[in-house]
């Protein structure tokens, strides 16, 4: 059990970008789009069987020919500006022990190739309207990175959100990995695209992935073709609009307030936010049960 290498690329201080499924698949879509955009090459994988239940079996005339597990692969790309490493996983492990173990493997590989900077990416569930451009919430693992993060466009720190005063919690590997990286004195930043509070977490939200990628493209000094994400975002928004049209007016009035900057929401307190969230979720659940929507 461990990491299996197919190739030993010669890399100079690469930057590692990680992506795995999560709310709105924001991080996964961002990392995978970037990987495809630069045409990165696969060179290693984490042997998945100790972490995941297999996804698919192939049996032919009685013989079990193959058993497939969720992929956890490493890719690399040598670029003029910077060498890149990618870790892209099809599933997040269940349980703290396994998540920590995967995190350690990822960082072992990163350090083996002299990586000094890591980016993870995920969702920031926020009071944002789906017609708005999602911002990126950035959480670095070192104070020395704060000034750099402040210079990123369309990006905020947790302390920029009045009600959070710099406090929060990043669940899953996105958070854990930057934490373990800190233990190893590696710089890491988690970039989280804003995701509307009232949208179902299983809905892919490429609009937020695009925001994350715009930030990453500048940091990495790479050109990324985002036209596919733009089309996909448009389609997703149309789907959300269809549901939104059915939302009762009273609920809609509350959601419309999200078009203001979240910090300017004023009259919407914690209790009201929670009530609204519950009401919208209940509405969506009812609609699904009635077969009115298919998201």
């Amino acid at each position, binding site marked *: 059990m461990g990491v299996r290498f197919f190739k030993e690329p010669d890399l100079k201080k690469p930057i590692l970008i990680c992506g795995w499924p999560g709310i709105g698949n924001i991080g996964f879509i961002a990392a995978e789009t970037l990987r495809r955009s630069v045409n990165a090459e696969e060179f290693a994988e984490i042997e998945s*069987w*100790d972490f995941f*239940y*297999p*996804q*698919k*079996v*192939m*049996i*032919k*005339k*009685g*013989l*079990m020919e193959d*058993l497939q597990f969720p992929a956890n692969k490493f890719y690399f790309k040598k670029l003029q500006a910077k060498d890149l490493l990618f870790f892209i996983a099809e599933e997040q492990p*269940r*349980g703290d022990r396994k998540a920590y173990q995967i995190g350690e493997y990822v960082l072992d590989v990163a350090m083996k190739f002299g990586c000094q900077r890591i980016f993870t990416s995920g969702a920031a569930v926020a009071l944002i309207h789906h017609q708005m451009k999602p911002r990126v919430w950035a959480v670095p693992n070192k104070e020395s990175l704060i000034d750099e993060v402040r210079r990123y466009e369309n990006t905020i720190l947790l302390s920029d959100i009045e009600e959070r005063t710099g406090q929060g919690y990043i669940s899953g590997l996105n958070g854990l990995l930057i934490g373990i990286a800190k233990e190893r004195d590696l710089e890491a930043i988690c970039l989280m695209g804003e995701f509307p509070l009232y949208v179902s977490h299983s809905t892919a939200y490429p609009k937020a992935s695009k925001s994350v990628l715009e930030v990453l493209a500048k940091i990495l000094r790479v050109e990324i073709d985002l036209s596919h994400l733009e089309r996909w975002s448009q389609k997703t928004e149309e789907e959300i609009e269809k549901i939104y049209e059915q939302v009762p007016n009273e609920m809609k009035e509350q959601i419309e307030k999200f078009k203001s900057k979240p910090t300017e929401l004023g009259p919407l307190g914690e209790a009201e936010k929670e009530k609204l969230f519950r009401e919208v979720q209940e509405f969506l659940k009812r609609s699904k049960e009635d077969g009115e929507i298919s998201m």
Partner: protein
Amino acid sequence: MERSPCEVYRFPDFQNPSLIVGWQTQDVGRLGTGVIDFLNEKLGGEEVGKIKPVDYFSLSGVRIENDVARIPQTKFFACEKNNLLLFKSDEPEDEWYRFLNFLLDIANSLKIREFYTINGNPSLISHSQHRRMLTVFNEREFGEDLGKYDLSGMYYEGPPALSSFLLWCGKRRNIPGASIWVDVPIYLASLKDPLAQKQVIDFLNRRFSLKINLEELDLEIENQSSKIEELKEKDAEIKRFLNLLESGIGLDSEEQLKLARRIYDLFGKEAEG
């Protein structure tokens, strides 16, 4: 103090035994556990150990089934005269790979020759029809050897059962293994299916020269069939459903549910237990 992840009550005296596994989670037709229980009863199997459930099952409380609290079971039984090691277990909820390898570690320490898992396959057939016995194996030669019996090689692509995961683990360790999948009428899926059980025991009889008398199962089959026949005579709708299945015509999900409910009511706790 480090505690062992398994408890062994007694080391059985075996000569390259075969391992037979029955999962009691989602045990279609009660086939996996039914076969293990039947073998234990007829061959004088003795409980020799268990894998401790810690790490593999949620143990924040206990589940209550039919008014009784139960904890996940993972038990080994030895039928020494027949050289069979039996394993009756709930399917683990986590750490599948570790669990399956631990099972194979124990089996390997007893120098097992091969292993089998027994499974029911819910099918749109009638209880009076012949049951296909499908097999999946992890080594071609082993599969060819099993070809002597009435087993058909399965074709399948999709989400794997735990039995397939076990076959894969066995293959990595060069232990030949096979899963036996027997068709079980959809309306007997949550009950006992004595005909499916008889077919498996018949296969094991031939494979291991067990000489188990099957009369008891014949009686159960007869009893079950006659009760269903009585129901058919009383209930025109059930008769229609069963006739459709016998003609090879499927039922829609509502019809399947209705039929399953009526058959379940007919046998109730007697058949369930």
